[in-house]
């Protein structure tokens, strides 16, 4: 039974690769292969980035006989990425799945249900940890030479890393579930609890990262100190080198922790899933409602959908909270690090401003609220389709949601940056305007993806938010236009200066935005009504 459930879980994650939602039929073998190649290409792209980091570090540390330190650093990065990928999934996948009641009503043991879902969480964490750690192992083997000890050490360390990511994800999922049962304003408290966890996690990570950076720079000096002061980190790193005793100690400890966590999750599952939670009965008081325009009504509905789901807010709207933090950082620390940055690029005229604008545009892509908005209509899409609402208005509201939630923090941050940056007035104005135009582009582009790649049948809302092909495209699509900015500067920027270059890019971006908006008004609206 566990195998059957596991198969179901995996099919759900990769459903879009096997099933064509639009044509309502299974994909051909060639199409399935193409989708998997696409996915593998994205993962390889990620792996390539981390391989670069590993490559720059490995040889130097091996020469200094500090291979364990190399593994400690790369292992730390792998844990961070693994946790990032799976941490927000555990709660919804385990406790909020729509088929929980169905499965519990069938002769299936709770253990099989819980463990199949946990295996799913483990796999996701392992997949992302692997994009960092597998290239790290290969690079280590390249420099240190291939030996059975090193290969087994690398594999054991990878398993331990994925177990650490799994345990952290489970703990957050469990904590959020326990909180949800006891509180009323579940959505916002869940978001706050998750952010608190994430904040603490990253605070500890960056503190450790600072220490590690210092250690890498003064490797020999600190090598011995770590062995004495942070022995667990040393032990952790030696696993990759094939240290048998340390591997056994870590593997034993992680196996015990995993067992305890799995036991806690298993024993509490039924209680949490069948709990109705604490909710006071809302007394209805009859009153005259304010009339709204159709657009305002639809926008308000989209707002309600967004704020009702902690997963939606965390997966697709985290930028709304994080982007202003960058603005505040720029105000507080900008005057000290921006001039250094500018000095480093002083031989290339204008590139500094172009890079700043590029980075601000990249910030705007943190939010992808519009991308899953069509998919999230799910089985209730009949409401919008059967009412006399122009589908173009529906799509406009979806795009507008993302624009509002991104443009306001982007405006704040760009103003902060333009205050502290040493640039011409024209550049300062463009630093504010171009990212705003890019935000509009990102909103319409994600709405375009929402209509083109919807996933309307899901048992867990996490699927359209984090695991659909559309999300992958909307994550990387806007980057393509940023690459266009880079190319544009490379070809023209040196000659015409940053301001004309940015103006040209802003116009190009506006043109593409208007074109996509036009498509949404006509063909997109038609496609939506035919879903």
């Amino acid at each position, binding site marked *: 039974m566990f195998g059957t459930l596991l198969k179901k879980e995996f099919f759900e994650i990769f459903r879009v690769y096997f099933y064509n939602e639009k044509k*309502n*039929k299974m994909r051909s073998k060639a199409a399935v292969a193409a989708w998997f190649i696409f996915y593998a290409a994205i993962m390889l792209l990620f792996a390539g980035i981390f391989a670069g980091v590993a490559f720059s570090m490995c040889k130097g540390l091996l020469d200094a006989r500090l291979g364990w330190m190399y593994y400690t650093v790369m292992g730390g990065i792998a844990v961070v990425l693994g946790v990032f990928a799976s941490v927000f999934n555990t709660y919804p996948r385990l406790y909020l799945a729509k088929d929980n009641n169905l499965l519990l009503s069938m002769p299936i043991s709770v253990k099989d249900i819980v463990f199949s879902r946990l295996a799913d969480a483990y796999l996701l964490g392992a997949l992302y940890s692997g994009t960092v750690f597998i290239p790290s192992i290969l690079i280590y083997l390249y420099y240190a030479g291939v030996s059975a000890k090193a290969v087994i050490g690398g594999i054991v360390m990878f398993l331990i890393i994925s177990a650490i990511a799994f345990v952290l994800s489970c703990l957050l999922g469990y904590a959020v579930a326990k909180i949800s049962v006891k509180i009323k304003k579940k959505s916002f408290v869940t978001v706050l609890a998750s952010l608190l966890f994430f904040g603490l996690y990253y605070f500890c990570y960056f503190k450790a990262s600072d220490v590690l950076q210092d250690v890498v720079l003064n490797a020999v000096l600190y090598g011995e100190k770590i062995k004495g002061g942070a022995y667990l980190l040393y032990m952790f790193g030696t696993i990759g080198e094939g240290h048998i005793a340390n591997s056994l100690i870590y593997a034993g400890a992680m196996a015990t922790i995993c067992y305890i966590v799995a036991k806690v999750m298993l024993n509490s599952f039924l209680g949490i899933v069948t709990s109705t939670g604490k*909710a006071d*009965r*809302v*007394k*209805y*008081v*009859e*009153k*005259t*409602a*304010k*009339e*709204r*325009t*159709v657009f*305002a*009504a*639809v926008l*308000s*509905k989209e707002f*309600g*959908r967004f704020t*009702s*789901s902690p997963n939606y807010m965390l997966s697709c709207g985290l930028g709304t909270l994080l982007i202003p933090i960058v603005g505040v950082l720029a105000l507080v620390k900008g005057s000290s690090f921006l001039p250094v940055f500018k000095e480093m690029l002083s031989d290339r005229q204008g590139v500094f401003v172009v890079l700043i604008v590029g980075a601000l545009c990249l910030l705007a892509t943190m939010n992808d609220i519009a991308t899953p908005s069509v998919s999230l209509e*799910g*089985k*209730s899409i*009949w*409401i919008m*389709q*059967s*009412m*006399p*609402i*122009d589908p173009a208005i529906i799509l406009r509201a979806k795009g507008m949601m993302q624009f509002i939630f991104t443009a306001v923090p982007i405006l704040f941050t760009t103003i902060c940056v333009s205050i502290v940056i040493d640039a011409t007035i024209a550049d300062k104005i463009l630093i504010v305007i171009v990212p705003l135009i890019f935000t509009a582009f990102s909103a319409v582009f994600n709405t375009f993806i929402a209509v083109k790649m919807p996933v309307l049948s899901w048992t867990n809302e996490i699927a359209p938010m984090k695991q659909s092909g559309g999300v992958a495209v909307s994550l990387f699509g806007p980057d393509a236009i940023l690459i266009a900015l880079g190319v544009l500067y490379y070809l023209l920027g040196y000659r015409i200066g940053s301001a004309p270059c940015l103006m040209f890019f802003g116009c190009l971006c506006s043109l593409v935005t208007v074109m996509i908006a036009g498509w949404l008004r006509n063909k997109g609206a038609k496609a939506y*009504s*035919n879903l």
Partner: protein
Amino acid sequence: MLKIEHLTKTYGDKKAVDDLSLHIHKGEIYGFIGHNGAGKTTTIKSVIGIQQFDSGTVTIDGISIRRDPMKCKKEIAYIPDNPDLYDFMSGIKYLNFVADVYRIPADVRKERIHRYAEAFELTNDLGQPISAYSHGMKQKLAIIAAWIHEPKLVIMDEPFVGLDPKAAHILKEMMRELCDNGGAIFFSTHVLEVAEKLCDKVAIINHGKLVKAGTMDEVKGDDSLEEVFLELEAV
């Protein structure tokens, strides 16, 4: 009111609806019966404009659903077999959302919501999130939402499923009242006793084809509707 002519819809090789023609006039309650997978839901979805069909025409008050879907949708209301509503809204928010879309003035919607919610004994639950509603309560809410703009034509897919006897009785009264005021009802059902007592006309569909249609007397003669239905199914 509703004219379906030569409607055909295929899924791959399978003809879900095959050259189906029906006319529903003002003042009529028209029942639509058939076995599971006979093509009832496909017909209904095509009629209300949420599903494309291969050929044929559907007109509501002389307006083609294909050419001017917005105008048609203003005149109709639809209740699906399983009303998946917006779980994140409260009942009253959902009703106000629907009323906003149909541009119902505030005082008018207030009176209608009060009237229908009282009839279905749902008033006290309107402040609750829809996620806390039972299937029957969701069905009642969907009915209120459908009636809120006083449509000329109401199209329903299995409307009595999940309703308690009292709510089913109220719905039947509402259906009759709407037709007495010049509206029309087109609904599918498996409850043949209800169809027999409630409908002015009935159509039986089998494997996508219309096998019999007309007034209740024309269709069943001296037999019961159940006997006629089973007989036609056996052919």
